């Protein structure tokens, strides 16, 4: 069995990690089961709900449809990587709380990360997104509790105040 393991090296939340993994390992299982980062949530494991969203080299992807072998040499950011001792919450997270966008919270972490990636993309392009674009940026996330309105409000508030 062991000779089948594939060595990979990557950075996760700023830390360098090297591992030997099963070839068919999926990123979400690496993150949750092996690295014990439980903030990445399994909502459907079929690319439909977005609860498992993480950033790979800054882009939001579904970790349930991403092969672990393909993170070799890349940078991963999970929700845990947004918190530091000095700054426990990222401004997006503050906005989510301020707007009441969190109910059961199972969908929230993925949404925070997608919004971060989208914010960075907007910054790069020097644009301030419209509400319609904000909604579109959230299309890959399902939320059963909130009806999305407060999530959209929070993301819009963050994305249209880029200085914060």
């Amino acid at each position, binding site marked *: 069995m062991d000779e089948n393991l594939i060595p990979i090296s990557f950075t996760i939340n700023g830390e360098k990690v090297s591992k030997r993994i099963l070839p068919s390992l999926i990123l979400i299982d690496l993150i949750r089961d092996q690295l*014990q*980062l*439980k*903030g*990445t*949530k*399994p*909502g*459907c*494991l*079929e690319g*439909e*709900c977005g*609860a498992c969203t993480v950033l790979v080299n800054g882009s939001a992807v579904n970790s349930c449809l991403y092969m672990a072998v393909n993170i070799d040499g890349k940078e991963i950011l*999970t*929700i*845990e990587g*947004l*918190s530091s001792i000095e700054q*426990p*919450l990222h401004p997006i*997270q503050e906005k*989510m*709380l*301020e*707007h*009441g*966008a*969190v*109910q*059961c*919270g*199972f*969908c*929230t*972490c993925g949404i*925070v990360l997608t919004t971060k990636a989208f914010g960075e993309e907007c910054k790069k392009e020097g644009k301030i997104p419209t509400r319609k674009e904000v*909604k*579109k940026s*959230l*299309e890959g*996330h*399902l*939320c*059963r*509790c*909130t*009806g*999305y*309105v*407060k*999530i*959209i409000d929070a993301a819009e508030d963050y994305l249209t105040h880029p200085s914060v």
Partner: protein
Amino acid sequence: MDKNLNIIGKSKPKLDGKERVSGRAVYGHDIELPNMLHARILRSQYPCARIKSIDCTKALGLEGVKCILTAQDVDVNRIGYKRDHPVLKKDANCQRDEIAAVAATSKEIAAKALNLIHVEYEEIEGIFDPFEAMKEESRQINLHGKGKDLYGNKNIAESFHYSHGELEKQTKRSKVIVSRRYELPRVTHCCMATSNITADYSTMDGRLTLYASTQVPFLYQRDMAHALKMDPSLIRIIQPVIGGGFGSKLDMYPFEPICALLSIKTGKPVQLLYGREEEFLASPTRQTMIIDLTSGADADGKFTFREVRITMDNGAYTSWGATTPFVMMQTYSSLYQVAACDFQAKAIYTNNPFAGSFRGYGNPQATFSIERNNDLLADELGLGKDEIRLINANYPGEITGQGLHFKTCGAKPALTKVIEASNFIRKNREKHKGRYLKGVGLASMLHVGGGAKIYRSDGCGTRLKLDHYGYLDIITGSSEIGQGSETVLAMIASQELGIPMKHIKVVNTDTDVKPWDVGVHASRTSFVAGNSLLGAIRLMKQKLDRKAAQLMECEAGEFLYENGLIKRDKKEIRIDKVAREMHFGSPNELCIVEYFYEPESSFQDKQFMGDVSGNYAFASQAVEVEVDTFTGNVKVRDVYVSQDVGRVLNPMGLQGQIEGGVATGIGYALTEEMIYEKGYLMNPSFHEYKLLTAVDMPDIHFYPIETLDEAGPYGSKGAGEAPLIPTAAAIANAVSNALGIEFLTLPLSPEKVLKAWSEKKQNELANSQSI
């Protein structure tokens, strides 16, 4: 009421929001215990089959498999309130039936083991239509059902009959009578976290700890004990953070005792998590209903009577879905003033999945039928759809035919508000041309607002502990499932005791610690747990007042609690100091109190007469839609919601409940449906079962009505279920308004809408040619 509310009525973020938004909150899926095994359930290959044999030899031979259970291996009681549901099945009665369960050292091995279990089935033709099931010659579907003795038909699982007023007389008085058959689809909760449980049995002391996402921990403890033939006190329920409830976690389902049994047999912790497909296949549903409703109105537009016959598809076993008539009959008897009502509902066994409870508890279905008929009555009478509703609206002081007493009632203000805000009267008359046609629709609802006495107690206990440093623990029987009740409790305590929110902790997840409560249902938590907390606070204040008076050397009596201080006139003392002095001074005592609150609502009698709830919530919604006549797609543009909430406790939390409810209501109206063919679920994934996305959401305009009902904390009423109840009805009315077509079923899928539209066009063409 008290004008100096500085916390209540102000928006407060969720108490443990930071944990949830940062990924630190521990949900059931995140629990890992040392030596934990992973379980999987083998479900039936057929919706209806005799099981001739089960061979587990191969699976047991797989390295890492620790235990396999089948019906033969366990000594357990049947579950469900009708006790008609075996935990593991000897024969298959629906597609979700649990045939065997495996515990293994990894998820992968458990999954592999399932494939190695060999079951020999003899398939039987199932019965999937409730009318078919009721026929004399049909076979008995659930052998534990008592329908034959109780209701005269072997396949009736539950039956209700209620009536008030003189039906015959009112029928004669009616100027118009409308009769329709409505069919409502089967939908499901789609909690973002799938069902989960972790069981940890100790062979040392025989105690069982369950990390279970239940909304009703104390009933669950009792049900679990009954199933496992155990002493309830040996079972401890710990509720992890729950990723969505909506009624789905109101009952105990077979997977839970199964997981417990695996832990008991192996002596190790065992975890069972559903995948999404399994969640669709095996978690509860809102049942399909066929509603035959006849309603009448007199020449002035006053409602005369409602006669309703409801046939519910109960599925193969009985869960709480069968009891939704309790709620529905209130709506038929008392939503708007109705002189007479005759209500019959039957839950019929079929080989479909069993029906659970779902936010709204039958009320969305009932409201849909009534509000569709109301539009038709208005049309026949030549009255406005707003007018007919205003004429019949419920009013303060009303005691309805069923005996519900509306001590306060915001029905008319709510209706008036949404009619104005949506510009309903003008828009309802507007005719549109072209590809996109607009329409508006109106619907109202009535729901219990102060709990509902359906169990022997509808109460809630609270224990309060003020420590030496002025921090408060609220140990409450009630549960948090994402709805924000914890935050409201902390706000109440902060308001009353002048303790800052960040010094307050709510402890509510452990049956070994918390006092009894019936659970999260019937929009009751803020009401019942809030009142219980207020009772406990009264006791604690008595204690603190007494001590403070002693310490400040002033007369006993009431003090002002503010900013961590207890004050009167110019004198003040820190609350923590009072708590310390209480402990260290004489007579040495701790600042701990306990209170149990039981709402005054009454148990209904055998005829279902009685005032079941502490108070009642009223709401109206007006919806504007745009129908694309090229594709049949319905776009909801604006939803106007006005709701009698008694008093707004936490505006932001309330608004979130409203928006979430409306979104679920839109899904029910337009896209959601579990498609079953001969007992097989055809769309068990988010790919085929369509939930709305952010892009689909309309603007939601919310206008709370505050009626300050004496019974509720600060005058508030329960609000959690109401927002989704009238939405589908209002949307259906709006689509009818846009197209001039009647719809009798949900969801209003693009295909259904387009089909109706092209039939209408063809008929118009045929008519114009024949002239």
